[in-house]
């Protein structure tokens, strides 16, 4: 089976590709460039096209498939009405599938399932990454607040941290919130 993965996010495309290579006799093509899309489609002649839901090229691609209905290998959106839950899951995960006419649903379903899992895994990874970035930024703020306290009050780093922590406990706030207040106040007072 020839599978085309269309995704402007090269990182996500490679995560899906990696999931699909485990399946038997699949040849996988990754397309990330919008401009060459239709020419590549014509060259590859895929049996299945997997595309991220929000891809800006979807209308262009659907038009190409509409025209392809007159050709030898008509392609249509994969909507197996007997299995609406699976389609809903793929839309929720953010992936649409188009398949060549006549391909049996039981050959398509495992693919879609892998794809859904991989899409979900990718968005989890992104969430985790965003969270990690947030944590790094928080640590930076706390470090700046400690430095301000150490400089202005001549205390040690552990003492500065204890100050921040006890203020946070008294105010039922997170340490980073107190640290932000310290940094902001310092900036307002003309500090750097």
């Amino acid at each position: 089976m020839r599978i085309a993965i269309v995704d402007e996010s090269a990182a996500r495309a490679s995560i899906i590709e990696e999931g699909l290579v485990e399946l038997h006799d699949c040849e996988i093509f990754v397309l990330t460039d919008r401009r060459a899309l239709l020419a590549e489609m014509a060259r590859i002649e895929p049996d299945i096209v997997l595309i991220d839901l929000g891809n800006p090229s979807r209308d262009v691609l659907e038009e190409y498939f509409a025209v392809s209905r007159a050709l030898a290998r008509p392609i249509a959106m994969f909507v197996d009405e007997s299995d609406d839950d699976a389609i809903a899951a793929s839309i929720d995960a953010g992936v649409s599938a188009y398949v060549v006419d006549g391909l049996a649903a039981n050959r398509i379903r495992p693919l879609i399932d892998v794809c859904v899992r991989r899409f979900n895994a990718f968005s989890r990874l992104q969430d985790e990454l965003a969270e990690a970035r947030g944590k790094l930024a928080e640590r930076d703020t706390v470090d700046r607040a400690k430095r301000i306290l150490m400089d202005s009050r001549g205390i040690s780093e552990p003492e500065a941290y204890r100050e921040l922590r006890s203020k946070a406990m008294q105010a039922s706030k997170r340490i980073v919130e107190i640290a932000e207040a310290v940094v902001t106040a310092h900036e307002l007072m003309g500090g750097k």
Partner: protein
Amino acid sequence: MSEQLTIGFLPLVDACLPILAQEHGFAEEEGLELSFLRDVSWATVLDRLLYGHSDAAHLLAPLAIATTLGRGRPAQPLSAPFVLGLNGNAVTLRTGLAMRVAPEAALGDPAELGKALALEARARKAEGSLLRFGVVHRYSSHNYMLRYWLAACGVRPDEDVEIVTIAPPFVADALASGEIDGACVGEPYSSVAVDRGVGRIVLATAQIWRRGVEKVLALRESVLEEKRHQTEALIRAMRKAGRHFVDPENWEENARILARADYLDGDPAQILRAISDRLVLERGGAPVTYSDFMFQHNEAANFPWVSQAQWLYSQLLRWDRIAFDPHEAEAAARVFRPDVYRAALRGTGDDLPGANAKVEGGVTGPLAVGMEQGAITLKGDTFFDGSSFDPDDIRQYLARLP
């Protein structure tokens, strides 16, 4: 406690009414809280609507009909109880081509312009290639209006030129690279192309059909029944937003709201052009006023005339080259839901026409129409070639067209 509704949209000026209904508090007055889902492809807007990510969507009217009829995917019945606006699109040509077919920067006579374009198309064909036009979707009024105009001017849209699909935000790029020679697209994307100096606006779709139906608010038929109460509240809120939208006092403020990053993420000055019916046709040119370029409120513009759905169905038959089918014709007509629109506004004093269908293109001068409540005078709804569409006679209408 407000009821929540999620609305899908593409970043175009004619997504204005639900957005402004939320922003100006009209939705809240009707007990609604609206949230929005922006996408860049109609296929995505449609998927989200069909699989429940959104309750309602800003949608191409012909796409709502094609989806109901199962063109290109299994049939799913959609309902359109509110027309989001009439026209608001423009035909933009690459600068060189525009200079040849319309030496003066003006919105000229559509028939004259079409004749000049037909000569260009023929010359290009003789050289072994075709003039290429971009439209936003196969099932769009942009496609149908462009084809209607070309065909009436002696250009066969599928033989003498090439018409391709292109997403609105990429139209300016495609004109710049020469991938297309012209486009029919909604605002602000013609204006974007003009300001980049890659194209000139030569025609407004309002010049092709003075009152051409454009986007609709679409819902799944089952969702409309489940959320009938909220849908009617939304219709009332959008009518209030429309009254605010057409008042010149509010133009600049509304352009600023629509330009925001979470809505159109665009330039308020460009968005203002469509809102105020004042288009800049070529880069650096003076604005040209073309009244009713975009027609969002007056003359009960949001009323879903069943005859509009039937005209769109006639064009779907024409360009998909399929035969008239009485059952399909009925299903297509049923997509537009004047009964819901009436129920929402009955007793509010807002304008409600007496009939659900009319002869489209039949009003050549001011005409007071029979009303259920309120009063309107239609100023004219003609097609540029003088023909009119009788919804009871779709087959004969198609037989008369080129």
